[in-house]
């Protein structure tokens, strides 16, 4: 065997691991460990309070501080997060959206404090609001001011931080919400067009700079288990982007038209049952976006084998990093020119995707573009419908999922033996963070902070760019909540369409008919149709499960109240009372179910509804499920309960059961 000269090999993509939890200090230690293990880029996960623009001591933050990411409230937190990390040599990706301008301002402030030239800063703020409305859920402001914030950042960074990707157009999250490849391509392109059109319309970016702006637009894709098709998808997007940038934006320089993208491989298909199988899925998905040199990703992030169980531990993440390293360094993947050059099979599939995506893109553009298609719920409805089709195909077995609806026999897995095989964030992290925040507030110069906030307010009112006053505010000790509240005052808050009300597709089938009959019988004995409230308490934005439950409940004949994401327990109890529902279904995937479910039960008791049955679904470890049931929850469901019709039947049971007085 000849060992090729490493000079003949292509440079590997950037290896990232999406991580962060508890506190800035703990996350910093984690990042340094990961870099030592050979990770080459950082990918910061923020906690939900930070992502939704509230401080750690805000009532809505309860139970969420430091859970699914790192809490960053002010410049000292940001400083601690990057302690001893060389910002001028780091490539930092931040999954931050509605408050992206603020987190970039904090990053710049940290760089300035440590004497790093901002011209050297390299990285990405995700900053894609359209997909927040469609899938990810951490939006704050209405579309119009949100698009303004994005275009402010694009206009600012192109000169001030030229190596920064101010926005990462995400199709990743669309696939996680059920999108087909065609939808993933078309909606992402419509989104990119909306951003670039907004920048072009501003007037403060000279026409001659537009090609540079276009060149800074990067994408964040998904890679699902149908990895051949995924390879074709990446090639199709490369082609479409080249055309759009040339025809619509007149970019002549081929380099600036290049489709640059990072990837996180699919997580929606990773299973709770036989979780070890997920490693194989992850490897195949990684191949989908690395095999083709012409359409290879620039950066890659892999989930862990225990994705559907809960948060990954350092060892779980290490295992996934090793997948990337083996692929890049042990295999001969990086020694070849494009493997698919001349393949008619691939070419044909690419053609099909390009044509179908073009047609769908045209439809969205005719509606008035991505923003209009968010507001009129078109795109969201399409996603919910695709996801409904997917869940049904899993139920019927039409879509085989090994270990779930096929080959379910299994020996006991040593991986899930013994103590919890997931990361459990220490409860004390929240308290410590709140104390540190209060200490920070009392040591900062109050009048400087006030002045900086006033400066921010004035600048925004005058239509000035959000970045300079935000950077000043970062230096002056303003907090994440204060910055966001200032913008809330000016812009208002937004509620995105849920996409469920117009879901036309009705589920058929024998077992459906059986449950529908039972729902009707129950209506006779109840005196009126069975009415259910599907609620999502807290900051959790995972809406897929709640949407599918709501649609299926409608399809079995229930009257369903679904109010979307981010409700307080008190609001849920008030809705339940006013609406006169017979049962409440809560959906919580963010891990804060213990606090939130108990709060809802308490609010229900206070409203005199202690008898109302409550069922809960989401990412809920067995031991927690037992505790919830002991506290009065009637049933608990997790991803392994993929048979929605069966769940509906059990909800009928729950309502029919005589309730023991609690």
């Amino acid at each position, binding site marked *: 065997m000849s060992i090729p000269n490493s000079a003949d090999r292509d440079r590997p993509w950037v290896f990232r691991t999406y991580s962060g939890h508890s506190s800035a200090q703990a996350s910093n230690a984690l990042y340094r460990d990961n870099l030592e293990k050979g990770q080459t880029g950082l990918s910061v996960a923020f906690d939900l309070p930070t992502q939704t623009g509230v401080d750690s001591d805000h009532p809505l933050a309860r139970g969420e501080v430091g859970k699914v990411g790192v809490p960053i409230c002010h410049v000292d937190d940001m400083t601690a997060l990057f302690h001893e990390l060389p910002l001028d040599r780091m490539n930092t990706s931040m999954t931050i959206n509605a408050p992206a301008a603020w987190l970039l301002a904090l990053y710049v402030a940290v760089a300035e404090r440590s004497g790093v030239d901002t011209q050297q800063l390299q990285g990405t703020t995700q900053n894609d609001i359209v997909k927040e409305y469609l899938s990810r859920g951490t939006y704050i402001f*209405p579309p*119009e001011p949100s698009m303004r914030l994005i275009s402010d950042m694009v206009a600012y960074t192109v000169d001030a931080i030229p190596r920064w990707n101010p926005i990462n157009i995400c199709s990743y999250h669309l696939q996680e919400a059920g999108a087909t490849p065609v939808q993933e391509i078309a909606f992402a392109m419509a989104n990119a067009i909306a951003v670039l059109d907004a920048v072009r319309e501003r007037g403060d970016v000279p026409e001659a700079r537009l090609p540079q702006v276009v060149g800074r637009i990067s994408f964040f894709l998904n890679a699902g288990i149908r990895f051949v098709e995924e390879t074709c998808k990446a090639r199709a997007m490369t082609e479409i982007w080249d055309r759009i940038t040339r025809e619509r934006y007149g970019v002549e320089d081929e380099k600036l038209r290049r489709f640059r993208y990072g990837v996180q491989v699919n997580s929606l298909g990773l299973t709770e049952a036989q979780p070890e199988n997920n490693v194989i899925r992850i490897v195949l998905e990684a191949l989908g976006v690395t095999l083709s040199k012409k359409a290879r990703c620039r950066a890659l992030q892999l989930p862990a084998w225990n994705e559907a169980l809960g948060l990954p531990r350092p060892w779980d993440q290490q295992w996934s990093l090793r997948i990337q390293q083996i692929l890049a360094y042990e295999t001969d993947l990086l020694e070849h020119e494009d493997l698919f050059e001349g393949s008619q099979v691939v070419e044909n599939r690419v053609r099909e995707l390009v044509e179908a995506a073009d047609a769908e893109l045209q439809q969205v553009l005719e509606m008035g573009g991505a923003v209009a298609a968010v507001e*009129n*719920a078109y795109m969201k409805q399409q996603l919910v419908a695709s996801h409904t089709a997917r869940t049904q195909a899993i139920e019927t077995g039409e879509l085989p999922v090994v270990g779930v609806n096929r080959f379910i026999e299994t020996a006991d897995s040593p991986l899930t033996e013994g103590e919890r095989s997931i990361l459990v964030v220490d409860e004390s992290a929240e308290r410590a963070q709140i104390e540190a925040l209060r200490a920070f507030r009392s040591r900062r110069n109050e009048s400087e902070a006030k002045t900086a906030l006033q400066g921010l307010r004035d600048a925004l009112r005058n239509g000035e760019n959000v970045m300079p006053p935000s950077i000043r505010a970062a230096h002056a000790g303003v907090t994440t909540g204060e910055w966001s509240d200032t913008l809330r005052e000016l812009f*208002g808050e937004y*509620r995105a*369409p*849920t996409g*469920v*009300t*117009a*879901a036309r597709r*009705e589920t058929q089938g024998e077992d459906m008919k059986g449950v*529908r009959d039972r*729902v*009707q019988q129950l209506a*006779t004995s*109840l*005196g*009126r*149709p069975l009415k259910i409230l599907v609620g999502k308490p807290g900051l959790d934005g995972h809406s897929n499960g709640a949407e599918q439950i*709501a*649609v299926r*409940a*409608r*399809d*079995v*004949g*229930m*009257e*369903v*109240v*679904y*109010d*979307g994401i981010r409700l*307080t327990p*008190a*609001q849920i109890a*008030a*809705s339940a*009372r*006013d*609406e*006169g529902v017979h049962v409440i279904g809560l959906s919580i995937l963010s891990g804060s179910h213990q606090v939130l479910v108990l709060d809802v039960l308490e609010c229900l008791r206070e409203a005199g509804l202690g008898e109302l049955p409550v069922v809960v679904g989401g990412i809920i470890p067995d031991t927690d499920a037992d505790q919830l049931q002991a506290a009065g929850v009637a049933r608990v469901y997790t991803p392994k309960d993929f048979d929605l019709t069966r769940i509906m039947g059990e909800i009928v049971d729950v309502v029919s059961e005589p309730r023991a007085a609690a």
Partner: protein
Amino acid sequence: MPEALNLIDDQRPAQRRAALAILDELEARSAFPGAHRLGVTGTPGAGKSTLIDALLRALRARGETLAVLAVDPSSRASGGALLGDRVRMRAAGEDPGIFIRSMAAREQLGGTAAGAHASVLILSCVFDRVIVETVGVGQSESDVHSLVDTLLLVANPSSGDALQFMKAGLLEWPDVFAVNKSDLGAEAARTRSELESGLAVGESASGEWRRAVLQVSARDGTGLDALQQALDAHRDHLSTSETLAARREAGRVAHVLSALRERFGSRGVEALGGATGVANRLRESGAGTFSLAAQLDAELDAALAARS
């Protein structure tokens, strides 16, 4: 309050009897003119719920208490329904001065639900203003009109919408028109003048009242003050012009008729002498609307049984 609404929805015989008794009593005791009853209709997505949310905030700030009845269509295949208007109505928060209830239209083809009349009665005994949101689907405008004192039509800023209303002959019902989303630009002004010219030729079901087309934005609050004034002006117009009593009575007759039509078709209604017959019965018997409907229902049942 929620319990009363649950009860009037309950079809079991004992509960039905109890509900009728309560409704009769409430109807007899309710003050006149009492709560202002405002209907909001328009195509899906025009911004009805968002606009109601904005109105709730503004009116609540004036000290009013408010109830919303939000009606959504039921699925014909399954009988189920997805009720999603609350998503946009966050004004309620935890404020007991605002009450929101969603309702499925059930088998009613129009945008209003069978129980809507009874629900409005109950809510109007407790709150200063009752707002009914319905889906504008063509047939429902006359139904909602009979349910409320003032009917507001919310239109999208698009000529498509204006044209559709005119074609469907819907322009006669609303008392106030609002072209929403004026924050989106010039299209709103165009739609407004299209509607205005439509009104100039069309007929109005509200007599003397001069109907205005307003331009509003539920998003940024533009035109909200003018809208509140127009709604209040219509309410005042009704009470001073004494048409309110007539309109409410017509509404009661319409309720009885639609309840009977549902079970017995137009033949059954004709057998009772149509609208005039029912109006006379309502006046003569002195019975409450709801128990009269039940009584006539039983009469028709008996007549049918005698014939077969």
